[in-house]
């Protein structure tokens, strides 16, 4: 049975966002379209928008704030928002310098955001976008939808958000975002599945002693199901997977994001962080930025993901460390 602290399962989106608005005084909530925006915009700045299905809290509303997003478009749980929803965010976020969309690579998100872009352009708002596809668990070929967008998206928000705040143009942001995405890799592991409130049962089943490598943030299947392993071995496997898929050499300078999937206690996240950072150090990588916590969750999934970003450009580290008012960063 599903055990959750909610009211009506089909009302979780609105109830949650109304709660978000009540807690955070410095945002607006467009109830009609489930969009959370800043209450004060930086004038003439490129508007940065992200969004997608809900269930990934604090993504994306928690990253709305000076220095990160201008608006977050919130779809129903695990369901891409509609073009109308995205359009309403674009209209609000446009401060005269155009709007940039950070889209995670799911067919629904791509189609809906693309339609919104077309509609916005009809209204004369310049719109560009990046498609984040950092999940190296997925074999990237013409036989699949391609790599999924997962926790690395948060680093994209931060970097383009800071760049926009510093006055970068839409064109510059597009270039920056594409370069960041090209140097970004993530992979996750689940030990317990998540339950979508309206569905009421787990999206997949795992035995009492099983874990799954490469799981997606909507419970999409991973690349290998195994007996549960110690944290150190999990860390080794995830780092190995990223190395195999990216073919990076160990002389890289990295930013590291360790992300909890929603029901994983911080205790485990820090233990896992210890293993990841120790292994990366042993291998010779230089880690210049580290972050641990729940950033891109899958409702109540238990598990973690590891995101590595090659810090190709020195400015990226500045953007990552620049201050922001977004409550969830």
């Amino acid at each position, binding site marked *: 049975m599903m055990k959750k602290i909610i009211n009506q399962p089909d009302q979780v989106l609105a109830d949650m966002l109304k709660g978000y608005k009540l807690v955070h005084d410095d945002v607006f909530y467009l109830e009609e379209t489930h969009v959370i925006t800043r209450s004060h915009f930086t004038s003439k700045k490129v508007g940065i928008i992200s969004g997608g299905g809900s269930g990934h809290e604090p993504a994306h509303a928690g990253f709305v704030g000076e220095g990160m997003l201008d608006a977050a478009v919130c779809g129903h749980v695990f369901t891409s928002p509609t073009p109308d929803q995205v359009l309403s965010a674009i209209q609000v976020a446009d401060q005269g310098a155009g709007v940039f969309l950070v889209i995670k690579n799911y067919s629904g998100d791509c189609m*809906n955001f693309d339609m919104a872009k077309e509609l916005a352009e009809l209204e004369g708002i310049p719109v560009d976008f990046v498609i984040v596809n950092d999940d190296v668990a997925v074999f990237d070929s013409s036989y699949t939808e391609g790599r999924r967008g997962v926790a690395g998206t948060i680093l994209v928000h931060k970097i383009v958000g800071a760049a926009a705040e510093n006055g970068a143009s839409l064109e510059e942001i597009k270039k920056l975002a594409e370069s960041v995405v090209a140097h970004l890799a993530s992979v996750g592991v689940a030990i317990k599945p998540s339950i979508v409130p309206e569905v009421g049962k787990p999206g997949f089943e795992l035995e009492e002693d099983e874990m799954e490598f490469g799981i997606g943030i909507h419970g999409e299947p991973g690349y290998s199901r195994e007996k549960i392993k110690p944290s150190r071995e999990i860390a080794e496997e995830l780092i190995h997977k990223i190395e195999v898929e990216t073919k990076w050499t160990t002389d890289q300078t990295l930013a590291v994001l360790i992300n909890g999937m929603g029901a994983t206690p911080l205790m485990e996240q820090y233990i896992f962080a210890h293993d990841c950072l120790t292994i990366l150090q042993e291998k010779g990588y230089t880690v210049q930025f580290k972050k641990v916590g729940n950033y891109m969750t899958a409702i109540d999934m238990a598990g973690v993901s590891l995101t590595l970003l090659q810090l190709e450009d020195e400015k990226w580290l500045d953007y990552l460390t620049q201050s922001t008012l977004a409550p969830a960063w």
Partner: protein
Amino acid sequence: MIVTKDLTHKWFTLFAEKVIQEKEQLSEYDRIIGDGDHGMNMARGAQQLITLWQAVPPVHLSDVFKQAAMKWISGVGGASGPLYGTAFLEMAKAVGAKEELSNDELVTAVKAGFEGIKKRGKSDIGQKTMLDLWAPAVQDLEKDELTMATLQTALTKTNELKATKGRASFLGDRSINEVDPGAASSKLFFEALIEAGEFGGN
């Protein structure tokens, strides 16, 4: 079969009703090879369409397609919202100002819908999606052979495919012998057409 506004209205109403009725089943198919929301997504569009038409029924033939398109595009989300929405919109465009369709004109409209899905989804038949239900349905409609039985055959054949588009593609071989939720909801769409046609005159 002459396709009137009333028949079309009935077709889409029946479709919406079926979707709402089969909501749980569609979501269950999606839970197995996707993310479990297809029934909820489709039912959202269906409910909005029924509510609209209870207040203001469609006036012109093309209104049926256009209004269904708007509800799916702006009320559904996910992959199915833009795909069905685009299909219905392309059908509305194909119908234009006509108030009656011949069988051939109906086929042309449905084909336009099919092409709309392909374009929007950057997809094609054989990828275990709704397209694998639409393609044989269009053919059968052309030959005036569309029946409940041929729809079932089309769905069964789709089940045997391996998914290479949409969320189910991540399952790879494990998607084989599972029901694609979008194909299942598309089957309801064409079943509704058959039912509407029988009652609405032939």
